[in-house]
């Protein structure tokens, strides 16, 4: 009974979807870009070196290893971060369970205190380790947090404008992303403030294909308003290591797995 009733509906859906296939659908572009930027392989690891340049020309270094496991492609993810430098945060670990349907869970382990601290994670747009990268820049912004509009399609890029659905929850009025047409990597982003002025940029400076996945090796976020920028380099990148879901738990916060310490 039911399948019979559904059949005309499916036919209608197929007919409606048909013409949309001709021009790339904006939702397809952004979800593909999201997958390429944050979901390559089933899991991955990278050593990350951040050089933070402040508005007075002073630099600070951050070194850490990041492990990631996808629960679902384009969906929930697990992140594990093991800090190496500066020395006052050495061996501190950070765990994120990223969810699509609710706020992320975040924990931090402070080895000096033997303390597993749970972190209230409401604001994703706060600096990661004092850098110009936000937590959201490292683990991805929820796609349904913004309205998306295809501004332009040229030979190289899809240019997409994103307007937040909840403007009060973020510091930008909109941001525009340049997505590379050949591999779907977001190569550049420009953030406009509420007065329409450009105040923040993200640029990918170096890309390579690692184990078949287009991968960012170097990127920079600049704060045009306050001055200063952070350059992030990724090295020792590996995909599909077969990381166990159990690694992303309190047990390994207290004793980081070898995959993170290497």
């Amino acid at each position, binding site marked *: 009974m039911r399948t019979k009733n559904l059949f005309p509906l499916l036919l209608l859906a197929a007919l409606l979807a048909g013409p949309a296939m001709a021009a790339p659908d904006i939702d397809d572009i952004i979800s593909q870009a999201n997958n390429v930027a944050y979901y390559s392989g089933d899991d991955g690891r990278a050593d990350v070196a951040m050089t933070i340049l402040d508005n007075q020309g002073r630099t600070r270094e951050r070194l850490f290893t990041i492990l990631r496991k996808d629960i679902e492609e384009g969906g929930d993810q697990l992140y594990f971060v093991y800090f190496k430098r500066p020395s006052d945060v050495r061996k501190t670990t950070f765990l994120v369970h990223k969810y699509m349907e609710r706020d992320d869970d975040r924990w931090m382990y402070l080895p000096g205190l*033997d303390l597993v601290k749970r972190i209230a994670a409401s604001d994703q747009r706060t600096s990661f380790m004092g850098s110009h990268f936000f937590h959201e820049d490292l683990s991805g912004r929820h796609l349904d947090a913004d309205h998306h509009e295809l501004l332009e399609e040229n030979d190289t890029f899809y240019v997409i404008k994103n307007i937040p659905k909840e403007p009060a929850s973020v510091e930008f009025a909109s941001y525009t992303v340049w997505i590379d047409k050949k591999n779907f990597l977001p190569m550049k982003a420009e953030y406009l403030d509420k007065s329409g002025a450009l105040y923040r940029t993200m640029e990918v400076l170096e890309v390579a294909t690692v184990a078949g996945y287009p991968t960012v090796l170097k990127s920079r976020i600049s704060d045009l308003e306050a001055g*200063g920028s952070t350059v992030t380099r990724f090295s020792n990148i590996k995909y599909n290591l077969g990381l166990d879901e159990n690694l992303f738990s309190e047990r390994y916060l207290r004793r980081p797995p070898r995959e993170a310490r290497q």
Partner: protein
Amino acid sequence: MMMPLRLNLLLLPCLLLLLALPAQGAMDQLRERLYADYGLDLTGFVETRAGLRTQNDDYADDLTLAEARLQLHLSKDVGWGIFKAKGDLLADGVVDRVTGRMRDLNLLFFPARNIDMKVGRQVLTWGTGDLLFINDFFAKDWQSFFIGRDDEYLKAPSNALKSSIFFDLINIDLVYIPVFEGSAHISGERLSYWNGVLGRTAGNDYIFDLEERSSAGRDSEYAVRLSRRISSMEVALYGYNGFWQTPEGMVVPAMQLRYPRLQIYGASLRNPIWGGIGNIETGYYHSSQADHGRDPLTRNSEYRLLLGFEREIGHNFTAAGQAYLEWMMDYKEYKETLSPGTPAKDEYRQVVTLRLTKLMMNQNLILSLFTYYSPTDKDGHIRPKVQYKLTDQWLLEGGGNIFFGADNHTFFGQFADNTNVYGGVRWSF
């Protein structure tokens, strides 16, 4: 004799820090060689701190803190386990002593796929409270906490065996401490305190003897935690069998303080709620030597409850509050056996805390405030602190410990003359 040594001790930190200036490159080299040649991982810091009372104390010096400290932390992954050694060399100008103390000297190994075992000297923590402890009954160092040492030093190390067993359904942590050591309580050596025998505040002039609690076997401590995560919620059950960590009893006529026996049964829950993190923790403290309240010289059994909530209230600005209750059991017996003239404690002691943390200047400037206030004791403790990370290596810190109270016999009120300010410089490598 005392003055020259004290002066030397105060010069030492300055020298150490001067040495640190050109040492950056050399230290990096040494570290890389240790790692390359021996697989040893080395970190540490050198720091100097000084603190002063902001008022006169009839029973203690003006100086609360004057010290230089070197901490070295070595670890080595030996394949089947991880060896860790962390120790402090402290030149303490307040008590004119140079001491070495290990905080960690342990081996972590994995006898089975789902078992982690740590043997040796280690710092232990669990539970959900923020500077209020119910089921975290591991040793603390309250003196360090009240004079402005780094928060790390509130947690005192224990010689222990900890095994953690991980199952799909539940995780079990078992801790065995063969010989009780207890927390570093306020003895009068450095901070003045309420002395019930004298009926007044006392300091260096009256330091109680402590009853020995050092026989292996009889004076052992056991602690257990069963925990699991259900979606985002963390639940745990706790048990402890040992002793009060601070001397909550007295032996007469020897006039010795003693650590009475104690069992704790507790539970906690932590879960995201209202855009932040909420927690509940509770515990029943069975003080078996209090004889159901009939022994006036031993602290009674009590029930403890804690509710906490933390959330971001602005950009890089976090607020956290807690409400805490200590409910004394057998209160009628306590009142009946209390010696005349001794101020009675409340049946329900309540404490609220507030923590505010603001990060500024690319998170290099950290402003924080932690406040304890007891509406029942009418006393409190305020801990403002400013930290500035001058570079990745240099940290400047300043803060205070403000104690106040309507009476001088309540928990925080007794420390009113110890209100102090402190400052420090740390170089990490």
